[in-house]
């Protein structure tokens, strides 16, 4: 047997051993203590999803004009867009959440519920970060493409709609996936203002029953599965994948 094959076999034996050990350890975790809380935890995960989906939805709707204004807008509008985007991006997400929950009521004179503050702040964060992803996508389209389209007689809107946008969307996809995953993880910060998202729900359960290892495993798995699903869903929209397959 060649030394290379021996090495490969040893490697897989090692992997199998680690997996077996992990599975065995997981089997002995405090599942019985956690079991009664499954619906509570699942609901909380759903709540995290709802936060992420709303924030991403509102975020994209706001980010798109914001990015377009930042790239194509007249000077004044452009500067306003830059200020807005950079103000959010240059401050910690947790601070934005606190501002919306604690400072906004002071400014507008009415209470804001924790849930609404969470939705609002996450949407603002999503809009700012996604605007930059979209802007990068718009800039990624070579000038030659725009010149070719203009020289053929297409007007500014048509150049944007038929040449810039389709290429920009395709080019921004990897960055978009990364940003959406980051946003999903950011939803965990709203636990600081008392929203019962997945992160908080796991912690609450942990304080009620003694099952830290099982719960941390659930916590990790919940976020991992969610973020992985986002990656897959967005990729499914990639025209390049359909093209090559």
């Amino acid at each position, binding site marked *: 047997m060649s030394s290379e094959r021996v090495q490969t076999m040893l490697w897989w034996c090692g992997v199998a051993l680690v997996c077996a050990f992990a599975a065995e350890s997981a089997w002995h975790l405090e599942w019985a203590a956690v079991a009664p809380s499954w619906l509570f935890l699942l609901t909380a995960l759903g709540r995290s999803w709802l936060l992420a989906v709303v924030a991403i939805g509102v975020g994209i709707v706001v980010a798109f004009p914001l990015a377009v204004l930042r790239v194509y807008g007249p000077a004044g509008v452009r500067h306003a867009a830059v200020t807005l985007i950079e103000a959010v991006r240059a401050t910690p997400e947790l601070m934005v959440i606190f501002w919306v929950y604690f400072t906004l009521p002071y400014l507008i004179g009415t209470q804001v519920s924790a849930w609404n503050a969470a939705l609002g702040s996450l949407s603002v964060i999503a809009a700012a970060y996604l605007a930059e992803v979209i802007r990068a996508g718009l800039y990624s389209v070579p000038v*030659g493409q725009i010149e070719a389209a203009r020289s*053929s007689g297409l007007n500014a809107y048509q150049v944007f709609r038929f040449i810039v946008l389709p290429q920009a969307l395709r080019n921004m996809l990897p960055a978009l996936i990364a940003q959406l995953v980051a946003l999903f993880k950011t939803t965990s910060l709203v636990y600081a203002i008392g929203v019962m998202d997945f992160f908080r729900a796991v912690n609450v359960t942990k304080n009620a029953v003694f099952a830290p290892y099982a719960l941390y495993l659930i916590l990790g798995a919940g976020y991992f599965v969610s973020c992985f699903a986002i990656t897959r869903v967005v990729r499914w929209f990639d025209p390049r994948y359909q093209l090559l397959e």
Partner: protein
Amino acid sequence: MIEFRHVHKHFGALHVLNDIDLRIEAGEVVVICGPSGSGKSTLLRCINRLEQIDSGDIVVDGISVATTREITRLRAEVGMVFQRFNLYPHLSVLDNLTLAPLKVRGVARAKAASTAMELLTRVGIPEKAAAWPAQLSGGQQQRVAIARALAMQPKIMLFDEPTSALDPEMIQEVLEVMIMLAKDGMTMVVVTHEMGFARRVADRVVFMDDGRIVEQGAPEVFFTQAKDARTQAFLGKILSHV
């Protein structure tokens, strides 16, 4: 067909077009040559207002380019071919050709497609209609780019160094398409270093240096009896190793 009147243009401190006067008649094939940075590409790009001029005027097909409010209408009549092809990578070859006729001219889809197929046949690659630009060689891409410009049935064709980005063995196939066009009577303005093409096809060769038109004339006169020292020096450099 195209007339430059005392055209000036600056890029910052650089005076790229310095008092350009030039008349190009319908059906004429004009080759513009000169050292890099002499302003020849800029001159070409001013014709369809990809670049704005500072002063003077350019009249194309009776329309003042600098002041017209309907620049897209003018651009529809002026086809352009670029050094880097600039095919739309997200569209098939056929869709590259039909996009502008569909959106600008409002041609019916079936008509646009049949015109596109005729043009692809004319440039010798009808079998590539369904291909993606990335699947074509450089020479094929440039021929598609020419067909795309022709799909708008323009009155004028502009070529901005159309063979400079090509491997040597692909230059000929592109030049042949251009020669065919010239023979069909197309008005053409060609920025190129292909002096063989200029000699065979051009009605006139224009030499630029430092933002000015230094010298111009019919190719047989231009290549053998250049008067200006700069023209002689330039021709000496590019013709010496042919």
